[in-house]
């Protein structure tokens, strides 16, 4: 009988272990690790394929972490099913394991769109170490690759394969690169980087079929528009969906992911879910949805772990945060950054473009609150925007400087229009987006005391930050 059973062994499981151990030093923890290695850094597999990063850096936590925390890990064992009545978990090695508290951190699995002949050799997904090893084994004979999907994984795989000297073509259904993050304008910056690197891309088209030769090897893909692209390998990276297989027919409520409440508990008492498989509250949308990003998984795992160990802590919510760079292009974004038009005035979009320096900043505002942003090129202090999303602050009174002027250490990087220090009369007109423009009570609280903004920030019943408005004393 395991007191705490954790199904899955990635970041949500790791943070849950840390959280449980911070409260309960002795309770038995059993971790089911579907892969035969310790928790590792998933995004690193593209870096390793490209040869940018040595393989020893792959593990996120090493064996010693599990030993120090007195955790039993069953390697190569996945969760197959759950009996919520008898409180027993069915494992993939045929065993059963009774549990007191269960954390479902089973993650996501790559979605494979309906493409003719997609099953068979030479077609890969790219989310795990075994995918990386499979691709690396054949790396010498690969010459031309088609990457389906221009999302995060697709772009990083394309970059890695290009660095290995392969000819790469990216096919994306939407009309832009990184469709979840960038708008048309932002995509132009990415396209420029791709052109420079010599990667070809097809936007607004999808792969409908794969042509194979007599021995079953891939020789061509066919697009919806009728274009045919010669290739010997296809990487499918159109997205990852929550993995709901283990909880099928178990009585645990699911929608797009496993539905959890604000303590990360499912509808069955004592069974929690966290990470890519969970459908938890999203503070931007104001409703539950799966957020398949690393920081959200960490936070959910941590809060779930605390609640499992009996320390009640509320999960306030999350939203997607992403940062990706390829071929010298760098974008940081969070929330609804891809919103293109101001739907009947319900969104307001602020942009700042500096073509020369390759800088693009965009903020999406709805109801006077920041809902999302994307920063391309100069990503310094991009987190300031993330903080605004967390605090749900009224941004209307510094909107004019929100994307144009961000405060930097001016002694080191003199800004245009910088005013002399201590000359208060000439400084009067300066207003640069940064912590100084935030309301006095808000910045006193968060610069003086280390707290989670989303947990401490007070909201009224409509969810609007109480620190809104300009209560500046200066």
């Amino acid at each position, binding site marked *: 009988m395991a007191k705490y059973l954790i199904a899955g062994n990635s970041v949500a499981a790791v943070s849950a272990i840390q959280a449980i151990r911070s409260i309960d030093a002795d309770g038995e923890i059993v971790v089911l690790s579907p892969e035969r290695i310790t928790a590792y850094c998933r995004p690193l597999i593209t870096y390793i394929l490209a040869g940018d990063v040595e393989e020893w850096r792959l593990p996120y936590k090493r064996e010693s972490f599990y030993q120090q925390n007195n955790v039993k890990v069953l390697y190569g064992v996945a969760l197959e099913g759950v009996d919520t009545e008898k409180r027993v978990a069915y494992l993939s090695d045929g065993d059963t394991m009774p549990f007191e508290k269960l954390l479902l951190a089973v993650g996501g699995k790559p979605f494979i769109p309906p493409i003719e002949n997609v099953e068979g050799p030479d077609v890969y997904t790219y989310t795990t170490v075994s995918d990386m090893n499979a691709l690396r084994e054949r790396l010498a004979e690969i010459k031309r690759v088609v990457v389906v999907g221009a999302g995060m994984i697709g772009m990083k795989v394309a970059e890695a394969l290009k660095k290995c000297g392969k000819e790469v073509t990216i096919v994306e259904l939407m009309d832009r690169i990184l469709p979840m993050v960038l708008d048309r304008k932002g995509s132009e910056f990415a396209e420029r980087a791709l052109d420079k690197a010599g990667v070809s891309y097809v936007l607004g088209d999808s792969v409908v079929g794969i042509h194979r030769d007599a021995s079953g090897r891939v020789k061509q893909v066919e697009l919806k528009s009728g274009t045919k692209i010669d290739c010997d390998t296809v990487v499918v990276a159109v997205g990852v969906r929550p993995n709901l297989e283990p909880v099928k027919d178990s009585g645990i409520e699911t929608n797009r992911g496993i539905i959890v409440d604000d303590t990360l508990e499912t509808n069955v008492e004592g069974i929690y879910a966290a990470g890519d498989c969970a459908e938890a509250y999203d503070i931007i949308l104001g409703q539950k949805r799966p957020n398949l990003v690393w*920081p959200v998984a960490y936070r959910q795992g941590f809060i779930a772990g605390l609640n499992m160990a009996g*320390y009640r802590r509320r999960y306030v919510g999350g939203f997607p945060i992403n940062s990706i760079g390829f071929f010298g292009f760098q974008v940081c974004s969070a929330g609804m950054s891809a919103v293109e038009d101001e739907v009947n005035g319900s969104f307001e979009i602020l942009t700042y473009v500096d073509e020369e320096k390759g800088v693009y900043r965009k903020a999406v505002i709805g109801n006077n609150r920041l809902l999302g942003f994307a920063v391309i090129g100069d990503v310094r202090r991009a987190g300031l925007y993330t903080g605004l999303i967390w605090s749900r602050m009224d941004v209307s009174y510094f909107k004019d400087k929100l994307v144009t002027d961000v405060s930097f250490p001016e002694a080191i990087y003199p800004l245009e229009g910088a005013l002399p220090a201590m000359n208060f009369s000439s400084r009067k007109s300066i207003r640069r987006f940064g912590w100084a423009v935030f309301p006095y009570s808000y910045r006193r609280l968060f610069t003086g005391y*280390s707290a989670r903004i989303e947990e401490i920030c007070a909201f009224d019943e409509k969810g609007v930050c109480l620190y809104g408005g300009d209560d500046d004393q200066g």
Partner: protein
Amino acid sequence: MSAKRTKRVLPIEENCMGCRLCEVACAIEHSEFKDPLLTFFQGKPQSFTVVEVDGAFSFSLNCRHCDEPYCVEACITGAMHKEHDGRVIVYEDLCIGCYMCVVSCPWGAVNPKEGSKKAAKCDLCPDRELPACVQACPNRALVYDTSEELIFFLPEEEEEPFIEG
């Protein structure tokens, strides 16, 4: 969650006149030369503290060394790390420069390192007794202390929801 509170650099905005000496001191301390002239003419100066100005008032904002840091959560390699003494530091040999920490920090205190694809942030000057920015401040607008006494700023109604029994 740590029992012992972390000492951090706290700004006192009433005392700050925006002279930016803290930025200069930080850049010098964290350059390879530790010398003002060499830092600014040959090195790649970078300050981890930012003097924020809004009209006549200003304050120097630095890493909070949070109890539950956003940047540590976001770090995909484990390079960003909370030490046992409470400092949040980045192990540069593990950092791959994905900038997830940069986009996560609401204080804007984690930034790309000048001249290399790594993250860089305040390390509370491990070689010194007092952080360079605090020592450089002529107005005592920066103090190096625990933030315990500032807890009374917490809104009262927020005490209940997250601790029960």
